[in-house]
């Protein structure tokens, strides 16, 4: 692991995160792609420094790059691809329904948020009513 590659991973994670924090599914997918690449950089470099392709008899095994992280990275790339393909399908579906790919806020959660406003209104109304009642008492 060199500082440069660590920086690369960091940069990929950073830009990816920036994209993740938005409403558009297409940008989010790009963001996921970027942090996915970032995690693969980490995975690839977790076996140590660079080396030669790990193919027996092609070179001295001590010069090989670590094959296990490669296998793991390959697995993770393929899995991420599969899941991303499904996410595409969701985006596609979203477009079919709403002609957009915005990830809307959850309806029920918005409902609760509005209820809080109502609660505050009611509380204020009651406080005012109590105030009036006390005034009448004094008067």
């Amino acid at each position, binding site marked *: 692991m060199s500082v440069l590659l660590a920086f690369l991973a960091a940069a990929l994670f950073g830009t990816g995160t920036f994209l993740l924090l938005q409403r558009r599914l297409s940008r989010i997918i790009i963001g996921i792609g970027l942090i996915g690449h970032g995690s693969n950089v980490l995975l690839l470099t977790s076996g140590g420094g660079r080396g030669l392709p790990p*193919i027996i008899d092609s070179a001295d095994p001590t010069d090989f790059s670590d094959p296990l992280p490669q296998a793991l990275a390959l697995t993770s790339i393929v899995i991420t691809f599969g899941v991303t393909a499904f996410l595409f399908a969701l985006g596609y579906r979203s477009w079919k329904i709403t002609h957009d790919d915005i990830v809307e806020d959850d309806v029920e959660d918005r409902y609760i948020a509005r209820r809080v406003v109502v609660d505050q209104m009611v509380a204020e109304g009651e406080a005012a009513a109590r105030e009036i009642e006390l005034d009448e008492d004094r008067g």
Partner: protein
Amino acid sequence: MSTQAPTSGPQRLVILDQSIKVLYQSILVLSLYFLFAGHNLPGGGFVGGLTAGAAVSLRYVSGGAMAVRTAFRLPSHIVLGLGLLVSAGTALIPVVLGGAVLEHGDREVGLPIFGDVKFVSALAFDIGVYLVVVGLVLMAFAAFGDDLGPIESTAPPEPPDGTGREAS
């Protein structure tokens, strides 16, 4: 690029069409090479399957969804299912025979040529992988490539009313 993705049309160049067909077939051959060489050289089921997928995408770009459908006779879900069946089968069969799951080789049946049979069994697993990847690509094109449904209008999409969102 998106707006240019051709679906059909008489203006398509015949030469391009033919060259893509040749390219398609040679990429398919390459994908099979990757599949079979994978155990000893870079390649394997994934790379092979994905290469085949790239070939299919080429085919799609040139000929649209119909071309993809005619290129592969088998329905894509059967390709997918067969792929998993082959791979999971090579995992299950040793268990049924009393070995470890996914155990490769011939020890169960005791064939004389130890190494070769081992090679075959692992290859079967890799073929399953290959099939699943090809199936995935086929299905992906089936899912996103074919837009001719009744609810699809050819007019540019308008935001439907009453959904409570601001115009974009």
